[in-house]
């Protein structure tokens, strides 16, 4: 992990001789524009596109969780697809089989995945780095087989539809779940978009607060040097296990969003490839930056959902080839991802400004 990504705005702080605190006009403008675009999107695109956007949100939430674990805490998981799947199946089963309402099911999916994450986090105390990557890779590969094994509950290879009993003129029947706006003022896809957009924003705000808190600093301390963190009074084991739990809960909530968006899940949606996508979203956006996974998820979504279908059938596999090559190039030349590149260039500009200021001051002295 390069230093540029290590500690929030470290490089800028180091280079620029802390200027007086002013209103970050640029940042406010960018936030307003982003917010406006996010609100406008579902009115500008057809329903299938809007549903794809919701899919990107599911990816962003799960990648956000993975970022907490891998980016901030340095524990590499190639198995978050399994937790995503656990969240999706938990949500589907709670709604369909136990008749739970939607939101308690989503919350329960998060709690269940937290517990599973803690269970995985325990052995991860002794298994580190590449070896943890290996174990989690095995978990990811095992997950679809577990779903097939317990097909009496999970529906096996043919999958599960999320259904709820609904009143009809012909009595109560099980129908595919639909999230609908009260009063029907918005189309179902638009309503779904806004509901899950709020959830996504909440997850990212929680993430930001965790990272900026004392706990967040202890996460980074554990990543950078476990012994030093321990000596400084950080309870390393507790931090690592809790991080695994929280990160898994986020992946589970992402899975819940995925399940509710699609209305149907099957084991082929949770293969090793999904875990790889999460990692890609994290490192492309920028590991150890709060907003990085969201940027990574959008970049990935644009690539797969928008660019790829434009290609002729024969050349569809070309997109992952480009993705693989880009990933390698990124690791070689910009391990901080998109956010890392932005920070480096921002730091360079700040340095330039600082130099210019010193030069001006120096010439001022001589006059």
């Amino acid at each position: 992990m390069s230093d540029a990504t290590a500690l929030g705005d470290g490089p800028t702080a180091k280079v620029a001789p802390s200027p007086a605190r002013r209103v970050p006009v640029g940042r406010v403008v960018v936030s307003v524009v982003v917010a406006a675009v996010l609100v406008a999107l579902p009115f500008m695109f057809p329903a299938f596109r809007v549903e794809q956007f919701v899919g990107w949100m599911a990816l962003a939430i799960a990648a956000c969780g993975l970022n907490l674990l891998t980016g901030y805490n340095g524990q590499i998981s190639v198995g978050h697809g399994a937790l995503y799947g656990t969240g999706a199946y938990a949500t589907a089963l709670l709604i369909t089989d136990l008749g739970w309402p939607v939101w308690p099911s989503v919350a329960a999916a998060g709690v269940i995945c937290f517990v599973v994450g803690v269970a995985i986090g325990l052995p991860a105390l002794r298994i580190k780095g590449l070896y943890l990557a290996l174990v989690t890779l095995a978990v990811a590969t095992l997950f679809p087989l577990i779903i097939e094994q317990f097909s009496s509950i999970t529906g096996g290879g043919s999958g599960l539809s999320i259904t709820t009993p609904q009143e009809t003129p012909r009595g109560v029947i099980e129908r595919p779940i639909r999230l609908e706006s009260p009063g029907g003022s918005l189309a179902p896809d638009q309503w779904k978009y806004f509901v899950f957009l709020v959830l996504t924003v909440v997850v990212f705000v929680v993430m930001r607060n965790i990272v900026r808190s004392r706990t967040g600093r202890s996460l980074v301390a554990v990543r950078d040097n476990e012994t030093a963190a321990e000596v400084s009074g950080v309870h390393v084991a507790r931090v690592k296990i809790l991080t695994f739990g929280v990160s898994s809960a986020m992946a589970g909530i992402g899975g819940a969003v995925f399940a509710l968006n699609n209305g149907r899940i099957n084991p082929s949606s949770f293969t090793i490839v999904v875990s790889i996508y999460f990692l890609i979203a994290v490192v492309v956006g920028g590991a150890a930056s709060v907003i990085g996974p969201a940027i990574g998820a959008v970049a990935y979504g644009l690539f797969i959902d928008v660019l790829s279908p434009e290609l002729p059938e024969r050349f569809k596999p070309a997109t992952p080839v480009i993705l693989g090559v880009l990933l390698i190039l990124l690791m070689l030349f910009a391990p901080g991802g998109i956010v890392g590149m932005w920070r480096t260039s921002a730091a360079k500009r700040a340095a330039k400004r600082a130099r210019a200021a010193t030069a001006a001051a120096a010439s001022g002295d001589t006059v």
Partner: protein
Amino acid sequence: MTDFLQVLFVGIGDGAIYAMLGLGLVVIYRSTGLLNFAQGEMAMFSTFIVWTVWDLGVPLPLAVIAGMVGGFGVGALAHQIAVRPVGDPHEKPLAVVMVTIGLFVGLNSAAQLVWGTLDRDLPPLFGSGGIEVAGVAIAWQKIGAVIVLAVLALGFYLLFQRTGLGLAMRAVASNSESASLVGVPVPKLLMLGWGLAAAVGTVAGVFTAPGRGLGSNMMQLTLIFGFAAITLGGFDSLLGAVVGGFVVGIASSVVPQYVPGFEKMPLAPAFILILAVLLFRPEGLFGRKQVQRV
């Protein structure tokens, strides 16, 4: 009893394949210190090269050799352009994992791009017949896998223990800085290690394809079995890869057959092995203990 022997022999045959992939993983671990998550995809890719050459009308054994040469090229190239520039795997594990994953994704879809998404048929190297011993049918293909594994393992043993080149490779594995100081061309040997690993991977692919169908995802399960084999055997031990391969092969064949609740999870015993060994005996059966100087 006959049933059990049947299951056992299937396990031994599969185990030989896992051991072959494991040998490649060990060679890479010994030379560059990393777990190569793209090993299975490299094997898959070079098996497609075998298929292409065979499809042109070349006899299969010659095609396999051509595929091994091609695989050597893929492995050496992957090391030169992607793995070496990224740096030390134990200092930057995330970057190294991501690079091997980039190779994984890239090779997997490159194979789909070149050879399409439909499975190809590669005939078994040792024919589809078999012999019957004590009422148990054993396919020539399984016996062939064990023999080929023995030849490969012996070849690696001789290379590492009896030749100057092998000595140099061991020097790089044990302390690359000192090796470099006494004039060993370290980068070249690392490249050679990756090439060799990919070349033996080809053979693992050639034995996997006839049973599973030659497709871009065929090696993903085999990769986990191969990793389980070398975890059990010890990441840096060639002998360990062989012993571990057989143990994993037999376990993943016997357990789903006889333990209720595991029918569809041949991977579960391998997973439990990986987890248990890493938790309680990280050096495996034959590996060297990793000691860290504080």
